[in-house]
């Protein structure tokens, strides 16, 4: 909806501004050619209402030529041509309206709509339309910055949530209980393996606590955490759980929200590999393509396994966090096949260096 027509206050203010403009134009017309005020008003007031309406169209012209992405010369051309066109239309309508008033209702010879009146109309029409465009650009900019603020806020909220969730995940009681049970089992027969697992578990907890506290981490770090998690789970599941990764050039350095793929990895084990007698491979693929980072997490699943609660939660969390980054380019695609489950994430590929340039 048009921003000026929203609510009651804005249209009222807009019309008030036009009343002021009308007084000014009227005074100018009277100055060059004094005549009966009523006749001038009969001609000018409908024309003002008409042009007030025309000037609202600047909104679409402005949106079609966004300030941020349009070259300055193009922008100037767009403003001048739109303003001149609008001005010409106003002059033509003004002339026709004047002629109509004169011939239909036989206004006396002090009729409004003379060449001088039309000249005033034309010049002020061009200027007014250009001003309207400036006003609309101002509104658009204000709106965009408000949107950006909202997005930043939403992303902060989502990040905090993810952090909390991550904290809970580290303290994911079942993961810990099962890991402790494995350590307890190993302590009897294979004390060296038990120590190794204590180390892995410690590394995982430390890394996930550290990662969660940061705003962005390199994808390589995120992947490292996933590998630690899988190493711990591999002690429990043995040969049933395997891991494969395929990381394209540049993907490892990309910055991602911390613990972005962790819920997907956990789902892949819990709702995929663990449900299969023969187990399976959790696969992670990442590549940079056209300035976007594509991450694929894939796991086999048991076609007869019932959909379990909790699976959707992790996915929803990932969705929200990506949307908070930039909803225009980020995507979460879920492919659920009988024997395979895939999630593909698409997000802007940025690394620290580019960020420094932008952030300056």
């Amino acid at each position, binding site marked *: 909806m048009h921003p000026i027509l929203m609510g009651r206050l804005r249209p009222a203010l807009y019309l008030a501004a036009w009343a002021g403009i009308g007084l000014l134009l009227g005074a100018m017309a009277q100055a060059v050619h004094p005549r009966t005020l009523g006749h001038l008003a009969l001609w000018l007031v409908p024309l003002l209402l008409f042009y007030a309406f025309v000037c609202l169209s600047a909104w679409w012209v402005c949106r079609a030529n966004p300030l941020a992405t349009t070259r300055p010369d193009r922008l100037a051309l767009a403003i001048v041509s739109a303003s001149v066109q609008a001005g010409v239309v106003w002059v033509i309508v003004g002339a026709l309206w004047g002629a109509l008033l004169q011939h239909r209702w036989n206004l006396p010879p002090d009729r409004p709509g003379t060449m001088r009146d039309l000249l005033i109309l034309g010049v002020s029409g061009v200027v007014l339309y250009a001003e309207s465009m400036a006003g609309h650009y101002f509104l658009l900019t204000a709106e965009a910055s408000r949107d950006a603020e909202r997005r930043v806020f939403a992303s902060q909220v989502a990040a905090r949530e993810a952090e909390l969730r991550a904290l809970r995940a580290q303290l994911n009681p079942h993961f810990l209980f099962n890991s*402790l*049970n*494995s350590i307890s*089992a*190993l302590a*009897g027969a294979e004390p060296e393996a038990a120590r190794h697992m204590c180390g892995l578990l410690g590394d995982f907890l430390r890394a996930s606590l550290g990662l969660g506290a940061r705003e962005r981490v390199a994808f390589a770090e995120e992947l490292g955490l996933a590998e630690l998690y899988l190493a711990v789970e591999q002690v429990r599941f*043995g040969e049933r759980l395997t891991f494969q990764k395929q990381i394209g050039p540049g993907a490892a350095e990309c910055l991602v929200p911390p613990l972005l793929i962790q819920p997907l990895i956990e789902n892949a084990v819990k709702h995929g590999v663990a*449900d299969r007698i023969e187990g399976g491979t959790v696969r992670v693929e990442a590549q940079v393509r056209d300035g976007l980072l594509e991450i694929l997490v894939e796991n086999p699943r*048991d076609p007869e396994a*019932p959909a379990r609660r909790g699976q959707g939660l992790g996915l929803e969390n990932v969705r929200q966090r990506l949307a908070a980054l930039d909803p225009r380019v980020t995507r979460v695609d879920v492919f659920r096949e009988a024997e395979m489950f895939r999630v593909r994430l698409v997000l802007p590929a940025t690394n620290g260096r580019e960020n420094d340039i932008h952030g300056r």
Partner: protein
Amino acid sequence: MAAEVFRIRAVIVDDEAPARALLREYLAAEPGVELVGECANGFEALKRIGELSPDLVLLDVQMPKLDGFEVLELLEVPPAVVFVTAYDEYALKAFEVHAVDYVMKPIRRERLAEAIRQVRERMGAEKSSSARQPSGSTLGAAARAPGSHLERLLVKDGANVHVIPVERVDWIEAQDDYSGIRSEGKTFLKAQPLGEIAAGLDPARFVRVHRSCVLNVERLARLELYAKDSRVAILKDGKELPVSRAGYARLKELL
């Protein structure tokens, strides 16, 4: 103690090797307990428990294919069961299916010993009173919390178990004490009366359209009047099923 010490033949069911190793180690130190088998998933458990008829099963809950409760449901003569799991949320359900005990991971040696002591007590009590244990399937039905529904149906077919997710069931027909489950062009005969199965199904998806038939409403194409007060349900694959007056009322209420 003067109490008679029973010899206990035990089976371990857990999909994680370290968890099995821990139980094996603990059991080895328990006097009078003999470990006769270890299973890594629900299917294996079903087969081995049937063959070995042990006195005690140490049963994990979350396993591939069949979970611990489903294994218990499919056992014709369920032995004493001690659930061993990291999850506490199944405890209530476990006692509803008359599990002797519910031991949490990580397992402590004394806690398992306590569970074994309880098993002995239960075995002694049963020997003196010869109380019959209810079958697993009735227990399974009783154990479902109100508001939760069956997600899949299990049909024993000789040594095999068919697992049928409920969304793939077309309809179920009563055949005396058995029920014929129709799914993906095949009929599976389950040794459980229709009424018991129907009680566990989601009423928003399955409607008892007739005394002898439960229909998955997603398969329904249309209803036709057949005679006064009697209708037939035409399914999307063309199959016709009788609909009683009460069944029609239930269908109408849902649709």
